[in-house]
């Protein structure tokens, strides 16, 4: 690990650029609220930067980020129930100065996320894990504490339901 601040910033920036979109997707599809998802991503990468800044070696950055995202997401959902804002948890949030041209893109993405709600919840999570997060059937089974056969069946049924939804649209 390089020890100058510039080198650490370069390392952080390259890993941030490589993974920030997939972490954002992971969170946004589950929270279904863009602002909250941005706050979670902020918390996750702030922790990641602190880790790098202290000079610790990050052997598997992707696994580190997913684990951190999952924990922050769980806390966010719990705290949402208890009416604690993520801004408070993040020690102050941040403002995005959106321009007019961003609005159309944000609305399109919100439509994609809303569209996913047409899928039954039992299929939605499994299809996201399989085709968006790229997990293998065995990994999904382990994560959800289900057997592999159940996961495979749900993937198959989920795809069948997707086919109907796409057919209707």
């Amino acid at each position, binding site marked *: 690990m390089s020890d100058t601040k510039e080198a650490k910033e370069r390392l952080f920036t390259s890993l941030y650029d490589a993974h920030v979109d997939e972490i954002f997707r992971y969170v946004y599809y589950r929270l279904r609220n863009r602002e909250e998802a941005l706050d979670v991503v902020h918390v996750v990468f702030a922790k990641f930067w602190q880790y790098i800044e202290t000079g610790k070696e990050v052997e598997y950055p992707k696994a580190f980020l997913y684990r951190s995202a999952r924990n922050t997401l769980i806390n966010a959902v719990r705290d949402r129930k208890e009416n604690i804002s993520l801004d408070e948890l993040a*020690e102050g949030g941040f403002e995005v100065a959106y321009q007019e041209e961003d609005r159309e893109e944000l609305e399109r993405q919100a439509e994609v996320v809303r569209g996913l709600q047409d899928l039954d919840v039992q299929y939605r999570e499994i299809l996201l894990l399989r085709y968006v997060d790229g997990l293998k059937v065995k990994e999904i089974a382990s994560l959800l504490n289900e057997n592999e056969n159940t996961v495979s069946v749900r993937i198959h049924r989920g795809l069948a339901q997707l086919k109907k939804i796409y057919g209707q649209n």
Partner: protein
Amino acid sequence: MDKIKQQFKDEAKSVHLVARERDSIREAILGNELEKLVPAQPSPFSFLLNPQWNRLVPIAAIFLFIIAGVPITNAAQQSVPGDFLYIFEVAVVEEIELHLHFTAESKNEYHLERLHERLDEIHTIREKSDVLNDYAPVVVREVAEHTEEVLRFGEMQDSKSDVDELVELSALVEAHETFYERVIPDGGEAFAGVSDRVSQEIVLEVDAYVAENTSETVLMEISADIDAISLDQDARQSSPLESFIDARLTEVAEEITTKDLGGALLVTSDIRIELLKRDLLERENGS
């Protein structure tokens, strides 16, 4: 079907950050955000936490008694995070107090009391956010040390009460972990090692308990745990914890069906830890 998969994948992956969001988050982390994390003015006694100086603590204690006597020691005992004498309390006064406990049981109780005291200080931390960064490393070190001492005491014992004590210890550590996770980036991660250590001990103790007892005894223990949890749950109707408890109790039933009594006992222990942790944090919220 491949076409459906591809369409789903393409649509789902078309969700991403717009450039301005991406830049704002990066700037918040590498720019102004870091300035907020610069530690507050350190206590003049911070050097006592350094292991190199730590050996001088007994000498400092004697020096304190000779020079200043009881009033300053008392003032240190009353101090809270951010006070001038706080680090002195943690590094010196509490060390002296520990040496005034002569039996293993009494020392063990003292360590547990200190873990509760660190948690009791949470409301002060909330009010004095400027001391947070100075204080957090002290707490991590303190929690790790007291937890290690309690675990060491537990290793000398030989009874089911070990699991109950470990449940209390785990809840205390997790309460710290949850609180610092909320108030400081990476705050919870710092407790992960201590937390894992206690979890491992619980697994070992539960395994030993199941191996040493008949199925009937273990089932009675599980049943007693479920009764206690159900009583607790009655008081939590409609709270966010209700569905969590229901789901975990279903797991207990599944473990019993598959005759994995150790697994069932671990799940009931997990539920008790979560309930106790919530109570500890709620108590601090209310104080």
